[in-house]
């Protein structure tokens, strides 16, 4: 397997606060990799570093063999990196259709029609404003939007946040579907059992450092470790163990 994303020893800051202390992660072609950790462990910062929104001050990031460490966000997206930000970040004053037209469409299998076919609720509500959608619909829109870039790598930051269990299952089905389509996925989740159940590999971050790196299935078995490291969402593991 070849790594399509490789972050090596990245150090990222917000102003003067040092958030990531040398994080190294890899995503291989066709893999679902999950990034776990407590609130404030640096998961979102890692993703913001990868997307170019908060570039690291030290270390290097390579995506599809290109050194993107200091590229602006739009160039990284233009390589075929889709990003579903934390909190969905739907453009509330734009319609569903307009939200889908923001990303400059790259040629590929994902067309507007195909995306709308995958998300029939969005097709029904295409003329509604983003802010009029339910949380689940907004999440679907947040996932649908970067698909129009025809990405080869998707970065998802807590797609299940604040959603009803039924919708969460739907979101996870879409993530699996992406892999079937040949996309690689990096997934941040608070809900560790959920993301470990669909991921191939997992990283656990704590205090801006990688403290676990291994197969998702192995981590899922070690409920003590999950409890200790992955925080809130791990309760379910304890109950089921």
């Amino acid at each position, binding site marked *: 397997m070849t790594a399509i994303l490789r972050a090596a020893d990245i150090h990222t800051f917000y102003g003067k606060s040092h958030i990531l202390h040398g994080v190294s992660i890899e995503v291989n072609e066709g893999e679902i990799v999950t990034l776990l950790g407590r609130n404030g462990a640096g998961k979102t910062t890692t993703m913001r570093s990868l997307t*170019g929104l908060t570039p690291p001050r030290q270390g290097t990031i390579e995506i599809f063999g290109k050194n993107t460490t200091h590229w602006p966000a739009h160039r990284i997206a233009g390589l075929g990196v889709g990003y579903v930000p934390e909190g969905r970040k739907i453009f509330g004053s734009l319609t569903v259709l307009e939200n889908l037209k923001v990303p*400059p469409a790259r040629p590929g299998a994902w067309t507007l029609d195909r995306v709308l076919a995958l998300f029939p609720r969005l097709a029904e509500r295409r003329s509604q404003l983003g802010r009029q959608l339910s949380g689940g619909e907004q999440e679907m829109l947040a996932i649908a939007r970067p698909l129009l870039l025809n990405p080869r790598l998707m970065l998802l930051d807590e797609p299940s946040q604040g959603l009803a269990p039924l919708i969460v299952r739907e979101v996870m089905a879409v993530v699996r579907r992406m892999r079937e389509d040949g996309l690689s996925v990096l997934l941040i989740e608070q809900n560790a059992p959920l993301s470990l159940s669909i991921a191939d590999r997992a990283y656990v971050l704590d205090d801006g450092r990688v403290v676990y790196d291994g197969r998702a299935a192995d981590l899922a078995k070690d409920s003590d470790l999950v409890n200790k490291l992955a925080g809130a969402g791990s309760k379910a593991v304890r109950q089921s163990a």
Partner: protein
Amino acid sequence: MQLLLFNAFNGLIQGVFYALMALGLALILSLNSVINMAHGGFLVIGAYLAYTLSPYLGFWGALIVGPLLAGVIGLVVERGLIRPIYKRSDPLYSLLLTFGLALIIEDLTRTIWGAQGLPLEVPDIINSPVSETYFFITGYRLFVIGITAAASIGLYLLLRYTLLGIRIRAGTRDLETTAALGVNIYKLRALNFGFGCLFAGLAGVLAAGVLGLTPPMGNSLIMPSFVAIIIGGVGSLFGAVLGGLLIGLAAGIVTTYYPAASEAVIYLMMLIVLAVRPRGLLGEEGLFE
């Protein structure tokens, strides 16, 4: 009654200029996050370039090319001077920068074209009064209203229906997410700044036809245009137009009864709006309250 109509119509024309200026200012404020103190400078650039070009292109050609050139110069200024300071999130930097730019443009204009006023020749066909009773309603003034309406509608259609417009609106709401979705926000902001300056240039050419040209001609228009944005509501382009027309009309009407207060009434209106409805008439909740 005749006097009231006369003053109200004068005020309306003045308001049209405020509205055009406020529209460009609001565009630039919302996407570029720049309080463009040099907006009056771009008005002057548009007006003087139109003046210089009109012997070659005629009034009509100059009316188009003058504002376009102001827009292009705006683009260059954005690229060279404004872009490097986006990183500094404090709006003070761009305020100081554009303030300095305004002074430079005014003095450059004085150096190139001289300090004395110049006239912009307007074709006779649009310069005669429409009727004798309402002598103040000249064809040119109706023309100014028409062009402004057309430009505003054009901008609305652009923002509403084109990909560029959709991305400008998206960037206004959330620049970061727009960039992460692959939109080149540098280009987007440059174009947007250029559009804003184009509108300033258009206001300049149209105003020159009524008021003539002087190097500080932008100064008297820029403060009321900021007031128009505050009254109309920051973040609302339609609000900016409405605010401009309202304060122009109010100033005109007050002139009839108490001329000395015609300027003060604008600021009084702003005071009332800020006290009663800080977001402005059409502004969105959350920006100031």
